[in-house]
C-alpha cells in the first residue's frame, strides 16, 4: 500500500506536545536552570556550573539520606512482596468472600498519604494512641519520638499497612487468570503445594510482580509525607530521607541551587535504579 507523506500529522501530536511541555518539560527545565546558577534574590542570577552538584555529592548529609532511603526501600520490598503474595494465595477465589476481601484490601489504598501519617502519628502516641498506650501498659518501652529503632519500626509497619494491599491486588489479578485445568493437571501429575506455586502460580504472577516491585520501589524511594507527619525526620536525622532533606534545603534554608541539584540527582537515581530492575527482571525472564 502506498503511504502518504505530509506534515499534517504534526498538528495531531501538537496538543500532546503542549501538554507534556507544561506538565513536565518546563518545570524540569526550571529546576535545571536553578541547579546551574546562584541567586541572591532580586532575580539576579550568576552562573555556577556544576558547583552545586559537586557540593551535594560531597556532603555527608546526601549520602546518609540516600543510605536511609535504600535501607527503607529494601526492607519494605523484602516484606511487602512476599507478604502480598502470601495473602493473595490465601484469598478466596469464589463466593461472597471475594468482594469482601477486595474491598477490605482496597481501603488502605484509598486513604490520602498525610491522613495515613496522621493516623499512625496518633496511633503510636504513648499518651493517647491505642498502640503506644497498649505497648506502654504491657511494659514494652516504645517511643517513636526519641527512639531511632521505634521510629523506623513505626514507619515500616505503617508503609506495610498502607501498601501491601497493592501487591495483594496485583497478585490476585494474576492468580485468578489461571484456568482451572492447570490445577487439575497438577493434581493428576502429583504436584506438591510448593510445585504448584513454583511452576504454575509464580510464572503467571511474574508480570504483575514486576509491576508491583517497580511501583513499590519508586513510591517508597520517594516517600515524604508519612515520615514528615509522623517523625518529621527525627529523632535527630534518623528518618530524614532524601525527600525530607530536599524540602529542608529548598524551603527551610531557601538554598535553591543545591536543592535543584539534589532534585536532579534524586530523579536520576530513581530512573537508573528502576531501569536496572526492569532490565534485570525482564532479561531473567527471557533467558531462563
Amino acid at each position, binding site marked *: 500500500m502506498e503511504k502518504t507523506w505530509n506534515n499534517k500529522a504534526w498538528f495531531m501530536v501538537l496538543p500532546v506536545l503542549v501538554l507534556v511541555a507544561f506538565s513536565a518539560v518546563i518545570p524540569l527545565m526550571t529546576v535545571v536552570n536553578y541547579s546551574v546558577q546562584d541567586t541572591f534574590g532580586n532575580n539576579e542570577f550568576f552562573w555556577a556550573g556544576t558547583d552545586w552538584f559537586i557540593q551535594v555529592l560531597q556532603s555527608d548529609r546526601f549520602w546518609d539520606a540516600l543510605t536511609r532511603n535504600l535501607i527503607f526501600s529494601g526492607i519494605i520490598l523484602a516484606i511487602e512482596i512476599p507478604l502480598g503474595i502470601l495473602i493473595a494465595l490465601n484469598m478466596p477465589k469464589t463466593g461472597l468472600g471475594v468482594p469482601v476481601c477486595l474491598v477490605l484490601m482496597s481501603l488502605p489504598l484509598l486513604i490520602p498519604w498525610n491522613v495515613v501519617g496522621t493516623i499512625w502519628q496518633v496511633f503510636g502516641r504513648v499518651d493517647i494512641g491505642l498502640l503506644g498506650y497498649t505497648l506502654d501498659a504491657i511494659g514494652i518501652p516504645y517511643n517513636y519520638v526519641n527512639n531511632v529503632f521505634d521510629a523506623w519500626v513505626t514507619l515500616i509497619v505503617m508503609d506495610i499497612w498502607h501498601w501491601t494491599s497493592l501487591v495483594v491486588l496485583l497478585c490476585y489479578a494474576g492468580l485468578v487468570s489461571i484456568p482451572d485445568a492447570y490445577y487439575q493437571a497438577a*493434581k493428576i501429575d*502429583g504436584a506438591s503445594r510448593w510445585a504448584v506455586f513454583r*511452576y504454575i502460580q509464580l510464572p503467571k504472577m511474574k508480570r504483575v510482580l514486576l509491576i508491583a516491585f517497580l511501583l513499590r520501589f519508586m513510591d517508597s524511594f520517594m516517600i515524604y509525607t508519612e515520615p514528615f507527619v509522623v517523625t518529621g525526620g527525627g529523632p535527630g536525622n534518623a528518618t530524614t530521607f532524601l525527600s525530607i532533606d530536599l524540602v529542608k534545603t529548598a524551603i527551610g534554608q531557601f538554598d535553591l541551587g543545591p536543592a535543584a541539584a539534589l532534585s536532579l540527582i534524586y530523579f536520576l537515581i530513581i530512573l537508573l535504579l528502576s531501569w536496572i530492575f526492569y532490565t534485570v527482571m525482564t532479561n531473567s525472564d527471557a533467558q531462563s
Partner: protein
Amino acid sequence: MARINLDHIRHAYGPNPTKPSDYSLKEVHHEWNDGGAYALLGPSGCGKTTLLNIISGLLQPSEGKILFDGKDVTNLSTQERNIAQVFQFPVIYDTMTVYDNLAFPLRNRKVPENEVDRRVTEILEMIGLSDRAKKKAQGLTADQKQKISLGRGLVRSDVSAILFDEPLTVIDPHMKWVLRSQLKRLHKQFGFTMVYVTHDQTEALTFADKVVVMYDGEIVQIGTPAELFEKPKHTFVGYFIGSPGMNVLPAKIDGSSVDLDGQKVALSFAPKIAAGAKTELGIRPEFVRLGREGMPVSISKVEDIGRQKIVRATFANRPIAIVVHEDGEIPAAPKITFDPAAINIYADSWRVGGEA
C-alpha cells in the same frame, strides 16, 4: 491397571438437585474391565468430561460410589487413585523445558532419575519432539503443546487407568493416525485400562474394543462397534453412529405389522410395546434397497461420496437416506424395500428387541 466400577453415580454441579434435569450426570452404573480400551462418544455437553473427572477424583460425585478392583475409592484423592488424565485443553508448564514437562509426573513421585530418563526419552521419541527436549515449552505451537500434554499422561507406566479427553483435536490427520497406533501399541504393552473421549466416531470405532455412547447425562449404549451399528439401543445411537445416521420413521405398530404413514412393512417378530408409547422404525441407509419393487419414494438429491452414493429421498412424507453402491442404478420410478433383519423398532426412543 484396575477394574473400575461406577456404582450408581450421579452428579449435579449445583447444590440441592431435585429434578433429573438438575443432574449433569444421571445415574451411571457400569463396570470398566481391567485392561479394556473404551471410547466415550457423545455430543457436546453430554457429561463426558464430568464422568472422567469423577473417575480420576478431580470431582466428587453427588451420589454413588467408585470402586477400583472392588475397593471403594470414592473419598480418595486423585493422587491416591493413581490415574493419568489428558485434558481437553492442553496444559503445559511454560517455564519448564519439554523434557522437564514430561519428567514432572515422575519426579513428583520420586521415581529414580535413570528411570525418569528412560521413560521420558521413550515418550519424546513417540511424540516426535526429541529434538526439542531441552527447549522451553513456552514457544511451542498448539499441536506440540497437545503432544506434550498427551506425553505427560503416558509417561507413568504403573497407572490404574489412563483417561483421554479428546487428546488429538488439533493434531493433523497423519500425525493423529501415527499417535493413535502408538497408543494402541502402548495399551497392548502395558495393559492399562483406557477411556478415550472423542467426537470423532471413526476414531472411536477403530480404536476401542467397546464404545460407550453418552447422551444427555446418561450412558445410552455400550457395545462393540458392530453392535452399535446393527442394533442401536436408542434412536440417538442410530442417528449419532454411522454416516449418514439411521433413518428413524414414525410408525404405527400392530402385532408384527408396521404402518409407515400408509405404507405397510411386515416384521419377523411382534414387538411388545407398552400402551401409549411413541413408536418408531429405524433402518440404516445401508439396508434400504433401491429398485423397481417395493414402496414408492421420490428422490431429491444424489450425493456421490466415492465408492458409494447417498440418495436423499422422501418416503411416506419423511426424508430418508439410502446408500447405494457407486455402480448401483437409480431407476426412473424408484421404489424401496427394507432388509427385514436390519429393522429396529423403538418405543419412546428405546429399542424393543425381537430377541428379548
